[in-house]
C-alpha cells in the first residue's frame, strides 16, 4: 500500500511521466546533396559550398581533415524521470547523431565519404589525441 502511495506521489508531482516525444536536432543532409561531391576531385571549398558548414571539424590521421555533418530525428514513447529542459551542448550531441563524415587529405581533396552514426564514424576517422608532456 505504501509503495502504491509513493508511486502515486511521484507520478502526480511530475517527477515521472509517460511521454511521447519527437526530437529533431539540426537539419538532415540528404544523399542527393552529397552526390555531386567526387572523391579525388572535390575539395573542402566545394564541400562547404555544397553542404554548408559542418557540425564538427577534426584532425584526422596523416594530416587529413575530417568534416562531420549530423542530425537527429527520434520519435516514440518512453518514461521520463525528472527531465531537464533547455540544456544544449555541442559536445553532448555526437553520441546521438547520425550523419556524414568526409575525409580530406593534406591537399584538401576528398578521399572518403561515409554515412552512419557519427560516434562510430568519428572513432574511425579522428586522430587520437597526442600526449602532452
Amino acid at each position, binding site marked *: 500500500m505504501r509503495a502504491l502511495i509513493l508511486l502515486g506521489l511521484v*507520478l*502526480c508531482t*511530475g517527477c*515521472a*511521466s*509517460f*511521454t*511521447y*516525444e*519527437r*526530437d*529533431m*536536432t*539540426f*537539419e*538532415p543532409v540528404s544523399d542527393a546533396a552529397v552526390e555531386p561531391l567526387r572523391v579525388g576531385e572535390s575539395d*573542402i*571549398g566545394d*564541400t*562547404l*559550398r555544397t*553542404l*554548408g*558548414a*559542418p*557540425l564538427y*571539424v*577534426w*584532425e584526422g590521421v596523416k*594530416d587529413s*581533415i575530417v568534416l562531420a555533418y549530423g542530425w537527429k*530525428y527520434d*520519435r516514440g514513447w518512453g518514461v*521520463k524521470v525528472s527531465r531537464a*529542459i*533547455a*540544456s*544544449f551542448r*555541442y559536445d553532448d550531441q555526437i553520441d546521438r547523431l547520425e550523419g556524414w563524415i568526409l575525409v580530406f587529405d*593534406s591537399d*584538401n581533396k576528398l578521399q572518403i565519404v561515409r554515412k552512419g552514426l557519427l560516434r562510430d564514424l568519428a572513432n574511425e576517422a579522428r586522430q587520437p589525441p597526442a600526449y602532452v608532456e
Partner: protein
Amino acid sequence: MWTNADRRRFDAHVWHEPRSCGTKCAMKTLIHALALPALLLFIAPSCFISRSTANEPLQAQRMNTLTPGTSTATDVANTLGAPNEVVQLGKRMAWRYDFTNAKQAGFSIIILTFVNSDARADRAWFFFDESSVLQYAGRTLQADHATYAMPWQNVHERD
C-alpha cells in the same frame, strides 16, 4: 446537559443518515465532495512552451566582408569576435562560430506528456593555412527554422 435525545436530534440535523453508520458514511461524504475537483484535475491538461538559445545569432553581412585568400585570422577575430571553438589541424587551424535555437512545445494530462523538441543552428567555419590566412569559409544559417509544434504535426520536409 447533553442527553441521548439531544444527540439523536443533532445527528439527524447534521448528517444525512443517522450517525450510527459512522466512519463509513463520513468517507462516503468526503468522496462525494472530492469527486468533482478530482475529475477536473484529471481532465485539465497543461500546455507549455520553452525556448533556449546558445551564443549570439550569426550575422551574414559581417561574414560577407571576409575573403578567402586575403583575410587573416586577425581580421576574422576583429569582425566576428572570439570563436566558440578552435580546432588545430596540424599546422593549420579552423574556427567555429555557432548559434543554436531550440524550441520545445507540449502538453501534459496528469502522467501523460506529449513533447516536441526542435533545435536548429547557425554555424560558420573558417579554415586558415599555416600563415593564418583564411583559406575556406562555409556557413549554414538555419536557426530561424526551429518551430513550436506538437509531436504529430508536420513542420519540416522529413515529416
